[in-house]
């Protein structure tokens, strides 16, 4: 393998990894507070992508209006998801919550299937992102460059909110001890709603970029990225935001480089993600950056 191809693959891996990371943040944040594996999280990618498409095609909005709008709408849907599917189950066994999440995920997918149909739709790619540039013989799409940059900006923004604002403080408190936080007079429902808003918006940003990278949108497009992002979150130590992004990068890079170095191994790609995960968990049972797990129920 030449350096050229290696660098090419490296950029692909980083771009894929940052998308995984972006989606994984949402998983990890919700998990941190509710100890819930939000299986419907991946489907928010799909919601965002469809909203963005309809914004552009149906209402003929320019992309720089349609995309942020899609992100906001998805954020609101995230809050609604919490209100309808998870809030009634706050003090229920965690497994009931999990089933509710699976139910919500089925509902989103099947609603899209009935309303929009299963035939994939093309995603309009704005020229700014679709442009391909050549640096020293390597062909890179602008999107590939923008994705990690946007991810890092969003990550630092998020870290600022979590570590330097009041609401972030409350979020951190809630993830350490739910009950005590409530006793301190913090409106937990609002904190949780805010968490869903943040997590869902990040997933939406990921979804829009995902749809630009792979411009076909169908009701099940969120399943695989969702699952991979979940693996990334666990890999990094679930509950830890920086860990989620790190896990995403590791997974994306690993997947791409595995296929690049050993193309005949590509059929084992999905198994590979899990193999890394199992190996890491064998040596660090709570992920790379995870703290020892305290069961809250």
């Amino acid at each position: 393998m030449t350096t050229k191809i290696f660098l090419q693959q490296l950029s692909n891996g980083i771009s894929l990894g940052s998308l995984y990371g972006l989606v994984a943040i949402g998983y990890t944040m919700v998990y941190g507070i509710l100890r819930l594996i939000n299986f419907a999280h991946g489907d928010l990618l799909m919601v965002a992508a469809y909203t963005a498409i309809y914004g552009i095609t149906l209402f003929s909005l320019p992309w720089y209006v349609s995309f942020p709008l899609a992100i906001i709408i998805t954020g609101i849907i995230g809050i609604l998801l919490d209100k309808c599917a998870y809030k009634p189950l706050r003090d229920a066994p965690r497994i009931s919550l999990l089933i509710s999440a699976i139910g919500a995920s089925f509902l989103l997918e099947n609603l899209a299937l009935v309303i929009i149909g299963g035939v994939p739709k093309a995603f309009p790619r704005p020229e700014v992102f679709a442009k391909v540039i050549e640096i020293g013989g390597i062909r890179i799409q602008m999107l590939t460059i923008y994705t990690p940059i946007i991810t890092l900006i969003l990550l630092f923004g998020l870290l600022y909110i979590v570590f330097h604002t009041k609401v972030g403080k409350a979020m951190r408190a809630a993830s350490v001890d739910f009950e005590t936080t409530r006793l301190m007079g913090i409106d937990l429902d609002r904190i949780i709603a805010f968490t869903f808003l943040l997590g869902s918006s990040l997933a939406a940003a990921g979804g829009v970029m995902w749809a630009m990278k792979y411009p076909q949108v169908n009701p099940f497009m969120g399943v695989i990225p969702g699952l991979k992002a979940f693996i990334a979150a666990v890999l990094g130590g679930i509950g830890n935001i920086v860990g989620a992004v790190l896990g995403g990068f590791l997974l994306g890079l690993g997947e791409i480089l595995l296929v690049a170095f050993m193309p005949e191994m590509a059929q084992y790609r999905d198994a590979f993600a899990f193999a890394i995960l199992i190996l890491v968990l064998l040596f660090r049972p709570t992920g790379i950056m995870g703290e020892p797990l305290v069961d809250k129920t």
Partner: protein
Amino acid sequence: MTKTRRNLILNCASLVVLFGILWLFQEYGTEYQIRILNNIAVFITLAVSYNLVNGICGQLHLGPNAFITIGAYTSALLTMSPTEKQMSFIIKPLIWPLSVIQVPFWISLIMAGTVATVFAFFISFPVFRVRGDYLAIVTLGFGEVVRVLCNALQSVTNGPLGLKGLKPYTNLWWSWSIAIFTIIVIQRLINSSWGRAMKAIRENEIAAQAMGVDPFKHLMMAFLISAFFSGVAGGLLAHLITTISPTLFTFFLTFNLLIIIVVGGLGSTTGAVIGATLFAWGGEALRVVESPMDIGPIHIPGIPGMRMVLFSVILMVVIIFARRGITGRNEFSWDWLLGKLSFGSR
């Protein structure tokens, strides 16, 4: 008459009644009804064995599809005739010992369970090193790995082309006998000292350990038994639908099983049975919402896909309003039924 004796008689009587009903269906029922009854039995076997790890031991295990896959493939490869195998493996020939072996159905089922158990034994070491959601994702991972291997190892599994032409050996007698056998074995296990230890681990692992319960030993026991019956059920499933391919065993199968046991009542065998029955029968009953309907003068054209939308809504409503599932952790008992009956007659 002592209670034990009364229960034994009632149990035997209800078994006779059940098999009487099955016989009636076998003789007079349509193929469609028989098929649904078979599905119910297979799902009961799967759900009850799955409940042992998830409900009784309290470990969120998301990899039963691995055992079902292994069971289904083992059993299918063992009962197919050598000529059928030769005709099916058109891309790569089947590897040697498997290509000539053919055994009776019941041996293939035992082998299905055994191979699944052996696999479970090997993965139990990494699996039970972690707990909680980490255990969930590791088991989910093994489920996916097995499916990926089935796709890739074309000289053993015929890859994505799948296996076909299996003899429809699974009938009401096989499926229901195995379902009932599974219920009896697992019920006895749950009510033994092993079962109590498993429940202790579920409630508080550290406390259980302090009381002298070895968590690894007990969890592994539950895991292996669960794997055995899942494997057997996989074999039954393969010979019920007479064709298998890796797409049958994705994590959606696991999700469905999880839904069954949680909606039924996590930790309750009765709940698992009710959940499985509702799932296998309800899916067919819900089809009415997709067919065109005439309610009075209003004509509603069928909307394909509505069934799944309604299924998700019902699922969420049930779980929100009955958060411990239909039965909770309660089990069916004759005392309870007789109590209800005498209350009603009073």
